[in-house]
């Protein structure tokens, strides 16, 4: 039942989807880190009304499975875009939105809620005594942020950021429901051609584990290198 001869051709087939997956994951990672940092700043600075909104957002997106968010975006985003465009008077066919854009938007919305938590944790690990010291030395708020806070906060966040990158990689596998082809979807397509399902899936498993190994060890290296300097 298990045929090892198809493993090699399958491997080449599935490897072809790796660059696309990594690029999409990187895009989502960057976008969600930006949005999540904004959320975290809102909570850290205790901005009145916005803070409650951020908490509500986080509760909503943590309670709902990502598949459902992806489907909601798939059916809800195009009409919403079209409606928004018509408000400002642009003729725009929302239903022509490519599926990968929908997937990126949906996953960014989900992961931002978690990314906010990561950034908040890193911000909270910052020792406020250093802020007092910087202020007493006459640092401005922006200088404090850029020269004292940022370098430490980034290093503190590295393990969690690596973890969230892997989570995004895995979350992209849900994209096959809306016809976005990543590593998992490619393994399914490959298997559908020759009916060797288990073989293709095992190759995908190996690819995912290798990527996870590289990402976590790379993050450890970077963290060790940066910690030595601070």
């Amino acid at each position: 039942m298990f045929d090892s001869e198809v493993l090699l051709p399958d491997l080449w087939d599935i490897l072809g989807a790796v660059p696309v997956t990594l690029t999409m994951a990187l895009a989502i990672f960057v976008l969600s880190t930006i949005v999540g940092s904004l959320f975290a700043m809102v909570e850290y600075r205790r901005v009145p009304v916005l803070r409650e909104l951020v908490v509500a957002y986080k509760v909503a997106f943590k309670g709902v499975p990502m598949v459902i968010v992806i489907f909601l975006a798939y059916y809800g985003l195009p009409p919403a875009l079209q409606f928004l465009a018509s408000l400002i008077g642009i003729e725009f066919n929302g239903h022509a939105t490519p599926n990968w854009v929908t997937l990126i938007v949906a996953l960014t919305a989900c992961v931002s809620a978690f990314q906010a938590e990561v950034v908040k944790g890193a911000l909270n690990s910052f020792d406020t005594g250093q802020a007092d010291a910087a202020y007493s030395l006459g640092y401005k708020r922006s200088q404090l942020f850029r020269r004292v806070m940022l370098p430490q906060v980034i290093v503190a966040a590295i393990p969690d950021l690596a973890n969230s990158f892997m989570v995004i990689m895995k979350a992209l596998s849900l994209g096959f429901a809306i016809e976005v082809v990543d590593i998992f979807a490619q393994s399914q397509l490959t298997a559908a051609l020759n009916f060797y399902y288990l073989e293709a899936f095992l190759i995908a498993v190996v690819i995912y584990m290798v990527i996870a190994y590289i990402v976590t060890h790379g993050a450890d290296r970077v963290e060790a290198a940066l910690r030595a300097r601070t």
Partner: protein
Amino acid sequence: MDLSIMIPELLLALPLTLAITFTAMIAGFVLALITTTFRVRRTPVVSQFADLYVSYARSVPVVLQLFVAFYGLPLVVDLFDVEDFVSPNVAAMVGLSLYHGGYLSEVLRPAYLAVERGQHDAADSLGYTFRQKILRVVGPQAVHIALPGYGNAIIYLIHNVALVMYIGAADVMATAHLVMERDYNQYQFETYLVLAAIYSLLCLVAWLVVRFFEMRNSKFALTATPAKVTMMASV
């Protein structure tokens, strides 16, 4: 779209979703205990396999794990010369148990290690066996440390049960698809909103239960070290 018809119909499929969840919860917990024991005792060879298993459970998407269970289980069953009993439901239970066990092991191990070093040493110097040490000294404290992480693990498990429809188990999601198709796919967005509400409620209940135990347990905690919980989704 008629909510008063749709919601009871979706709720009819809830028992299967809950059955898969509870099976995975219990089997996963047992698996996690075994795996964690091997990992913290550093049993040669076995602990390396346990590590490999944990990294499989944590770094491979749950959908893929479900498919591997679905296509791999018949082969395993074949090896033992048993009649093939693997249905999508069984595959979903096995796949999610494996996933949950690996994920939970990475919650339990840090909790075990987070118990103060002196407590381990004291138990060892009093001649406690590993079992006694776990049951009488380290375990009760580790439970308190592990609870927030355990709550997260349960919530992610509930989220991931939504994926079992891809291997053909007729859970709430699959029923929702049937309901949508019966209405000629007019109300997809609304149906998914209802699903989102159902899953949020399930998560809320799970969270409240774990929270109750956290509150009850807090008075048994010796040290006030809050456990570091990685707040990251798991799919």
